């Protein structure tokens, strides 16, 4: 039963963190190149543009949700399971979500990179 709780919390971490990353990425793509915008119209404009995007605020909220889910997961399971499992599953979930929701071209190269990193994270914690 404890196992089910732990994996449920890990799943919540992965879902919240992937949707947070997708929302933040979408917001920043809409804002456009921050460096160019800064040189062009100043830092305040940049901050205003970013903070006025609903997807940015929702993304922050999802990141906070993922952080608290991680705390719950850690209170149920071992850190040596929870940390690598959630980190590496998040890499894979992000690749899928970015393909579906952001229409990024996730080619072989990017799939292999995501899987290599996910596998590497698991080994690091082993």
């Amino acid at each position, binding site marked *: 039963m404890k196992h089910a709780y732990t994996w449920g919390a890990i799943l919540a971490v992965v879902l919240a963190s992937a949707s947070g*990353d997708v929302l*933040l990425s979408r917001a920043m*793509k809409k*804002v456009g190149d921050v*460096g*160019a915008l800064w040189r062009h119209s100043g830092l305040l404009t940049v901050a205003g543009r970013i903070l006025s995007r609903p997807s940015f605020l929702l993304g922050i909220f999802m990141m906070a949700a993922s952080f608290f889910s991680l705390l719950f997961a850690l209170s149920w399971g071992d850190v040596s399971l929870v940390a690598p499992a959630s980190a590496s599953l998040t890499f894979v979930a992000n690749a899928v979500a970015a393909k579906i929701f952001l229409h990024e071209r996730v080619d072989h190269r990017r799939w292999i990179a995501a899987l290599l990193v996910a596998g590497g994270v698991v080994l*690091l914690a082993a």
Partner: protein
Amino acid sequence: MTFRKYLVLGGVTLFAAIGDTLLARGMKQVGNISLHSLPDIVLAVLNPWVALGILFLLGFFAAYMTALSWADLTYVLPATSLGYVLLALIAKFFLHEQVTTTRWLGIGLISAGVGFVTQGPALTRHPYHHQPDAEAERVGTRAEP
């Protein structure tokens, strides 16, 4: 990809690893916080290591948002995953933890992943999408979809 952009990706990697290390060090000093005394977590900010760690993580977030403004999510995440390797090296050389063969193998896999993704393009070009640099210039007048 310009040199400045690689610098931003390096910042994402460095700030995250250093911030996490500082937080871990500070929280070891602060000690366990139980769920019954959650407000204690606010006091943890008073620990100088924790405060410095938060500062670095804010820097990480700024660099991460900057990177996402001109590169794909599936590019930025693997490209900055060298932070895991950095954490292992910090653990070995500063905290004198032992890095096992399995961990070195993990470091190798992550580095290979980083090498793979940075060989490719950083941004997906959609047919209806223009260059982000050109887009930023007229972002104020653009009608939002």
